[in-house]
């Protein structure tokens, strides 16, 4: 056994130092990652797909076949190509809206939670008022009033209507961090408010913020789809929502053209399910108490210890054979003892 005060360098040399082994991600995380990766790859595949989304390859609702996996839509465009372009647009809108909403929410939440007092009352008052207004109505009103709707304006509009609950959640976290001792130490070291917020408060709630961001992205993709289905989507661009809008407008459901509305619906479902699952499994990554697979980890550790013990016993017995030690027989027995202890 190593001495209790063994230097750190020895620990680094040990097989345990593989950083990925200690994280031990759950199956849930991998499933979520595969779903999200599939959707992202689908969005990017539009760049290498031979037909463009605006290219006319057939007539109204040609059924799948003839080299077209999902046939054509109402304009005679290849549904797969439109789906790829639409997925990309939806992901971009989701990401931009998520960044906008998370930035506003975290900024307001951090300041009100940390500073407290009348500023907190004011900011939380504003947040509660915004929270009380149904955001879909605000979204529709802003979208109508914009002279031209692009994917960027849509993303920003979605972002600035969905920050309030992030702000409230971050405020609660920040006000709990604000009472910790290291904040006092930072103040005594002469740090100013922005530095304390960014270096002493934000890192402590970062895991929470990342999870909130993932939810915001998923929510924004769905909000875009809802707006686009109502006909308020980005003009001149394809998105999952506009695809559904045209499918509805041209009676795809009534005429049985399932290939026009099912693919975008399934992708939307996968996207939001994937992001929600990712958020839930991130919780396990950040919070060790929720981690699964503890038993497997312990089995692995036991197996590792047993292997170490076997190696130790083998090297000892070799040494003993070389030295022709009369007491050599006792050492492998001791080694076996360690091995059994390790397995148990």
């Amino acid at each position, binding site marked *: 056994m190593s001495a209790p005060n063994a230097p750190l360098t020895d620990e680094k040399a040990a097989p345990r130092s593989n950083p990925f082994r200690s994280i031990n991600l759950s199956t849930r995380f991998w499933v979520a990652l595969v779903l999200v990766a599939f959707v992202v790859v689908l969005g990017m595949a539009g760049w290498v797909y031979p037909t463009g989304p605006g290219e006319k390859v057939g007539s109204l609702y040609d059924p799948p076949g003839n080299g077209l996996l999902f046939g054509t839509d109402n304009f005679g465009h290849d549904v797969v190509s439109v789906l790829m372009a639409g997925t990309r647009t939806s992901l971009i809108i989701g990401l931009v809206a998520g960044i906008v909403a998370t930035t506003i929410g975290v900024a307001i939440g951090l300041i009100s939670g940390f500073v407290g007092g009348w500023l907190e009352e004011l900011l939380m008052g504003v947040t509660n008022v915004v929270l009380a207004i149904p955001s879909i109505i605000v979204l529709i009103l802003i979208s109508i009033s914009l002279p031209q709707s692009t994917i960027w304006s849509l993303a920003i509009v979605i972002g600035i209507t969905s920050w309030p609950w992030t702000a409230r959640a971050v405020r609660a976290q920040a006000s709990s961090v604000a009472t*910790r*001792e*290291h904040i*006092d130490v930072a103040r*005594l*070291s*002469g740090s100013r408010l922005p530095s304390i917020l960014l*270096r002493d408060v934000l*890192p402590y709630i970062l895991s929470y913020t990342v999870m909130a961001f993932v939810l915001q992205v998923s929510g924004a993709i769905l909000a875009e789809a809802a707006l686009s289905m109502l006909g308020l989507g980005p003009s001149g661009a394809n998105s999952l929502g506009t695809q559904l809008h045209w499918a509805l407008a041209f009676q795809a459901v009534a005429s049985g053209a399932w290939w026009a509305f099912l693919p975008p619906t399934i992708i939307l479902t996968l996207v939001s399910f994937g992001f929600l699952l990712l958020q839930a499994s991130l919780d396990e990554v950040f919070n060790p108490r929720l981690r699964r697979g503890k038993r497997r980890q312990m089995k692995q550790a036991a197996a590792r210890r047993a292997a170490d013990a076997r190696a130790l016993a083998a090297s000892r017995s070799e040494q003993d054979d070389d030295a022709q030690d009369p007491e050599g027989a006792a050492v492998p027995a001791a080694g076996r003892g360690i091995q059994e202890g390790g397995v148990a």
Partner: protein
Amino acid sequence: MEQITTAEAAGDRTDDMFSHSVVTGEAVLACENVTKEFSVAGGKVVAVDDVSLQFPAGSVLAVVGESGSGKSTLARMLLRLMPVTSGTITFRDQDVTRLHGGHLRGYWREVQAVFQDPFASFNQFFTVGSLLRRSLHLAEVPKDEADDLIEQCLGYVDLTPDQAMGKFPHQLSGGQRQRVMIARALMMKPTVLLADEATSMLDATLRVNVLNVLHDLKHDLGLTVLFITHDIGQACYLADRVAVMEHGRVVERGTTEEVIFDPHGDYTKRLLADVPDLKGSLKRSA
């Protein structure tokens, strides 16, 4: 009660506070009639009640009391990390009770602190080096002297930059962490160092180690140390003067000899009786 009556010739007794010898010499930091009330559901809690204390320059003053006696609240008010409900705090005869902004940071250049929990005091995401460098702005040192200052301050607490600078808090032992915290406080070259239960969470050997560091600092740098503890033994080991607090009030104060070896307040006597010593043992008395 009779004992107290006979001692009144030597001391000064008001209401329920017994004052032995009075502070002579210049008080660097002082608080006068400081009170702190917290609003809680259904009323108010008076955490610190009309406390007046003087901290003579270059000495160690211990504030002793059990949990909830208001010691830490008093410390936070003296540090200006918490506003007072009423009363004044003066530093070198200047009222610092309502300082803010740059003036408050100027005050922290003179009055620094070490806290109880040697882990909670650290931001776990940054190294010791970045913690110490953070103080450079307040310490007002030119860039080329920064490394020298850091090395010097770590030297006061028996650490070298190699041992500490690149380490994260969790890579240090409890005693090392607390010594790094003392080094951080010294970066500003303060005149007053406030140690709020700075040794409570350390084990016995490290505790003496940190107490000795505090003693050496007082000796070598002429630092005024305000040592807040619930442990009357540590107060006795380190302090020149002792103030005893109970339920937010100072109930007895004087030099260490006077308070600890000739206590007059009932509460002080009770605190002293609670100190476990080597002679009295539970096993023997049973």
